[in-house]
């Protein structure tokens, strides 16, 4: 391990953060708000820390897998630290714990907030808040591309199964081309959504910030009522379309845009993902029709938005789901745990692992029926080894265990059970809102400071796929 090489590459990430902070400070100056100096100073400190390793450390092209993992994880942690600077410097509701929570929530594209009055925050700072989502989203792409494949067969399998042979090769060798492909999709989707929202009547500032939050499946809004503020079906439809698209593997999206749209629907993961969202929407619509929504139109409108929002780990809201009946609530909790596809910016257990889970179940049942049979489950004609199935089942169990432990910790701090469990699940899945006191129309400000640190640990664990962070903190990895 060469710490100096890690520092050099982390420097690039800090410079990227500094650039966005600087743009935010310029916006702050344009709107003559009070966040100009906090953002500018944050940008300067980040830039100075970013530039310094480049002066000392000579460039190198050979980076080991372990160094790659460290670069990504240290970048994430330092980005969160640098990201809290403008919040802490500005003050207001941002105590140290709150600023850390907001920063981690932004970079991990969770979208949970501690702000009781979002609209009181200056626009420059709101832009920075949305930018943390977008930067975090691009970080996920790099993480998925360069680090996860180095974490063994299971990590690689998760991404390989739904790729065409061409993309798979790119992916396997982590070429510059693969990174370009994913970044083109990421930037393209952001630009397309911004224009669509502008056409629907949003102003430019809101359109850009909401596009940042949607494509990164984040969920930070510039309004207290989130998307409900606009009360516009057109804006909701545009947001839903881009939320669903952002939940699909970006390389598959690129192939679909490049003319191989059949590949998109050939993927069993994508088929499951879309079918789950559709069924979830229909069942929720049936459940909420009558109470609280009188008309079928309203029931469909609110059910689809909330299911798609949580099912893609975005976290925008158009309704107070805390008032919904139990079945709809349970469905939303299920989607909070499951989320969308691997290879996208979404969090959660991920649809791919759920599909693996069903494959493992099928194998076990067939094994009981035919004890002598050799059963090799396949996904899109790719055989899945026992190691991969075991690793995925282990991940799901570990994921739920972390949610449970986190819920217990929150409960011990005096948070009620529903809020503790759904808050933990929502932060672990990088979704955003939970239920109870952390519902879709409220925030995390009432959680004790210690609880906020627990939840930020959940966000980082969820974002870095649990094992990434565990490996990072193991002393053996540092040698």
């Amino acid at each position, binding site marked *: 391990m060469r710490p*100096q090489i890690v520092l050099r590459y982390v420097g690039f990430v800090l410079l990227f953060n500094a650039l966005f902070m600087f743009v935010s400070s310029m916006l702050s100056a344009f709107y003559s708000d009070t966040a100009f*100096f906090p953002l500018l100073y944050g940008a300067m*400190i980040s830039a100075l820390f970013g530039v*310094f390793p480049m*002066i000392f*450390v000579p460039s190198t092209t050979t980076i080991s897998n372990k160094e790659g993992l460290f670069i990504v994880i240290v970048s994430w942690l330092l980005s969160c630290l640098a990201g809290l*600077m403008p919040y802490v*410097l500005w*003050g207001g509701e941002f105590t140290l714990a709150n600023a850390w929570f907001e920063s981690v929530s932004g970079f991990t594209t969770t979208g949970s907030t501690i702000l009781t009055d979002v609209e009181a925050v200056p626009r420059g700072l709101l832009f920075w808040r949305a930018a943390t989502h977008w930067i975090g989203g691009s970080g996920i792409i790099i993480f998925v591309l360069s680090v996860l494949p180095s974490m063994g067969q299971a990590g690689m399998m998760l991404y390989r199964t739904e790729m065409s042979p061409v993309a798979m090769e790119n992916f396997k060798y982590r070429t510059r081309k693969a990174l370009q492909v994913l970044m083109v999709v990421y930037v393209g989707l952001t630009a397309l959504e911004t224009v669509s929202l502008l056409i629907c009547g949003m102003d430019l500032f809101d359109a850009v910030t909401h596009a940042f939050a949607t494509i990164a499946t984040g969920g930070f809004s510039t309004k207290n009522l989130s998307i409900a503020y606009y009360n516009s079906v057109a804006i909701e439809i545009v947001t839903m379309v881009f939320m669903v698209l952002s939940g699909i593997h970006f390389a598959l999206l690129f192939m679909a845009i490049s003319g191989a749209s059949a590949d998109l629907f050939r993927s069993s993961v994508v088929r499951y993902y879309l079918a789950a969202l559709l069924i979830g929407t229909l069942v929720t619509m049936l459940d909420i029709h009558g109470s609280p929504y009188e008309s079928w139109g309203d029931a469909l409108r609110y059910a689809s938005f909330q299911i798609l929002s949580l099912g893609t780990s975005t976290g925008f809201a158009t309704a107070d789901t805390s008032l919904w009946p139990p079945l709809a609530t349970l469905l939303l909790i299920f989607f909070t745990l499951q989320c969308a596809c691997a290879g996208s910016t979404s969090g959660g257990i991920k649809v791919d692992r759920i599909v693996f889970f069903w494959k493992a179940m099928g194998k076990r049942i067939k094994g009981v029926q035919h004890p002598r049979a050799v059963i090799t489950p396949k996904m899109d004609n790719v055989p899945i080894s026992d190691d991969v199935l075991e690793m995925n089942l282990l991940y799901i169990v570990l994921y739920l265990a972390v949610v449970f432990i986190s819920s217990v910790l929150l409960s011990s701090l005096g948070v009620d059970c529903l809020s503790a469990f759904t808050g933990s699940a929502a932060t672990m899945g990088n979704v955003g809102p939970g239920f109870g006191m952390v519902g879709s129309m409220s925030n995390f400000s009432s959680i004790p400071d210690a609880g906020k640190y627990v939840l930020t640990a959940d966000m980082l664990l969820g974002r870095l796929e649990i094992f990434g962070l565990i490996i990072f903190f193991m002393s053996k990895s540092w040698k």
Partner: protein
Amino acid sequence: MGLRIKILSGFLILTMMLLIAGVWSIYELRTIGSSAQALLDDNYRSIDAGKMMLEALEREDSAVLLLLSGKWDQGRPIIQSADISFQQGLQIARDNVTIPGEHDYIQALDKQYAAYKKLWLKPIVGTKYEGNLRWYFEEIHKAFLELKDTIQKLITLNHQTMYKTASELKNRAHRSTMPGIVAILSALIFTLIFNYFINFYMVSPIIRITKGVHRVMETGEAFDVAIETKDELFDLTDSIRKLAARIRSGEKLS
């Protein structure tokens, strides 16, 4: 990049961190001073003027009651001095319009006071109005309450703005101290990194070069120290390598 620039860059960055934090803190502190002055000038003066008008109005009301009870000698001087006080208060408030909405209240006060004054300016003692409590409650007291209500609203508006300015002052005080704290923490972390780089890229190579030279002198082996940076240490290593090679070839020749 040369060693001098590398070391200088470290110190420059440290200086910049502290300097920018210092400049910003001074700016915020100066703004706190002007905001506190503005708080006194803009809001407190208007609140004072409002209180002055309220007090004058109460005295006018008492004087009107004296006139109603036929005590012209006692009532008239009180009402005249109270009128002067009210006009003074109104003038102070008129000259100190600093908050959005304040101007509307001043205009309303102008109108309402003119209407109120018109009522008590007419002769009361020895006329049909003397002892006429119904007239008092239906007209004078009603105008008095309206006027009082408007003054209260003007005071409340200034109180609210004062509270808002005080909160902003609190935020500014926070913003004047935080850069210092952030700068100190950043400088500490930066010093650690700087120290690590100095050790890794300067001290450690010098030790390796020294050991390499000793090895050459003691064993006559080739000088095999590798330096990855392209700076003076790299040049030094290269020169020593050439020197060692020349010495070895000289020894062989002799």
